[in-house]
């Protein structure tokens, strides 16, 4: 028994191309699911974080509670957070998304607050002096100036989420983690390597494209070092 196990381990290469070519649809589906889970998590996270971030920035009294609450959510390990939700929402897409969205909140809100705080007082006073009403000032002066910090938050949240999505395979929600889990269960390296490489490449591609987007939407900050 031991001998066959050892021989098997030696014969299992890091990547077996025949498996890859035979499993293209499976790999493509895992990748698509991974991207879907990530995009929805960061998108919904942003929808929640923008009002909360602006609230935390405006109301100093609410800043502490908002940071503490999202900080606690961020601290709870992903597997534990999913597990806490399972009795209520089951082994579902919803459970995965609630967990993933919770992790984006702290990063996004903190970057929104840091970005808004960094808008110079003179600039805001100048805007007021030019007759901007508060809402117009927010939309046309404060938010654009805070954009580099907010985009930096979106980049960190996206890359972090791509890593966390691999854990959702443990609650049966697919993604590239299902390939990694497959590799672990069958003691077969190829799906593990494919799943990990695609996850890392996806994270890098997402980071680079978001940084490109950041340059595109903040043309005035070019030449300065990136946030």
């Amino acid at each position, binding site marked *: 028994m031991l001998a066959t196990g050892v021989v098997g381990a030696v014969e299992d290469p890091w990547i077996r191309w025949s498996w890859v070519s035979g499993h293209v649809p499976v790999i493509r589906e895992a990748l698509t699911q991974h991207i879907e889970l990530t995009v929805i998590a960061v998108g919904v996270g942003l929808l929640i974080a923008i009002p909360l971030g602006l609230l935390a920035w405006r109301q100093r009294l609410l800043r502490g509670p908002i940071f503490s609450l999202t*900080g*606690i959510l961020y*601290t*709870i*390990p*992903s*597997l*534990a*957070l*999913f*597990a*806490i939700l*399972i*009795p209520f929402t089951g082994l579902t897409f919803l459970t995965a998304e609630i967990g993933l969205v919770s992790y984006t909140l*702290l*990063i996004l809100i*903190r*970057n929104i607050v*840091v970005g808004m705080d960094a808008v110079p007082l003179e600039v805001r006073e100048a805007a007021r002096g030019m007759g901007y009403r508060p809402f117009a000032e927010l939309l046309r002066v404060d938010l654009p100036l805070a954009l580099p910090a907010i985009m*930096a*938050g979106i980049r*960190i949240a996206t*890359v*972090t989420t*791509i*890593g*966390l999505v*691999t*854990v959702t395979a*443990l*609650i049966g929600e697919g993604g590239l*983690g299902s390939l*990694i*889990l497959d*590799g*672990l269960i069958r003691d077969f*390296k190829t799906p*593990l390597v494919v*799943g*990990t490489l695609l*996850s*890392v490449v996806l*994270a*890098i591609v997402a*980071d680079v494209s978001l940084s490109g987007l950041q340059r595109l939407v903040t043309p005035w900050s070019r030449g300065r070092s990136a946030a």
Partner: protein
Amino acid sequence: MSFIGQVLQWFLDGSHWQGDFGIPNRLFEHVYMSAASLAVAALIALPIGITIGHIGRWGNLAINVSNVGRAVPSFALLVFAVQLVGIGFWPAFVALVALGIPPMVTNSYIGMREVDADVREAAKGMGMRDRAVLWQVELPIAAPLIMAGVRTSAVNIVATATLAALVAWGGLGRFIVDGLAQRDTVQLFAGALLVALLSIAVEVSLTGLQRITTPIGLRSETTTQEVRSTSLSAA
């Protein structure tokens, strides 16, 4: 019985508190694994980060290490370690050490770089030698950020140690992984609660330690706030 009642009963069941599979032993395994990995990761990461921060070179290395570290899923790291060193204690240990290094390298580097150049010049002007500048000026000022890196690593390690149950190591993750496998939601929930409480306890106590290590002259609400945000965006 309500679900919460069942969870309560699980915790009150004496058999869950004794033996190799009991809560105290699982907690011990979790803390032992995390502390050992954090200590070894710190021994590797802090000298590197502090040195490159002190001499002011290879800064890109510090930043890139952290970016790559963030892109590699910890779950994948763990499964890779299994391929290299088998199952049990060692793969989890190797993966957790690797996971713990990047935030500490980056934060100690940034902490050292953010020491005001004027302060460093003043120390030299007072006749302090290089070594004294490092130990008596730079390190104390960088301490809050270095500690923020240690905290980030510790929280990441404790979280990933939960996944170590997948590679046949114990720890509190055992309750979650077994609960998932056996469709035992009560055990699953109870285990998750224990993991969450441990993580929050680690975060809170290290935040306290970070405050203590901040030199008194640098202590204020705003600095802690800024340190937190910097540690996050850097980690």
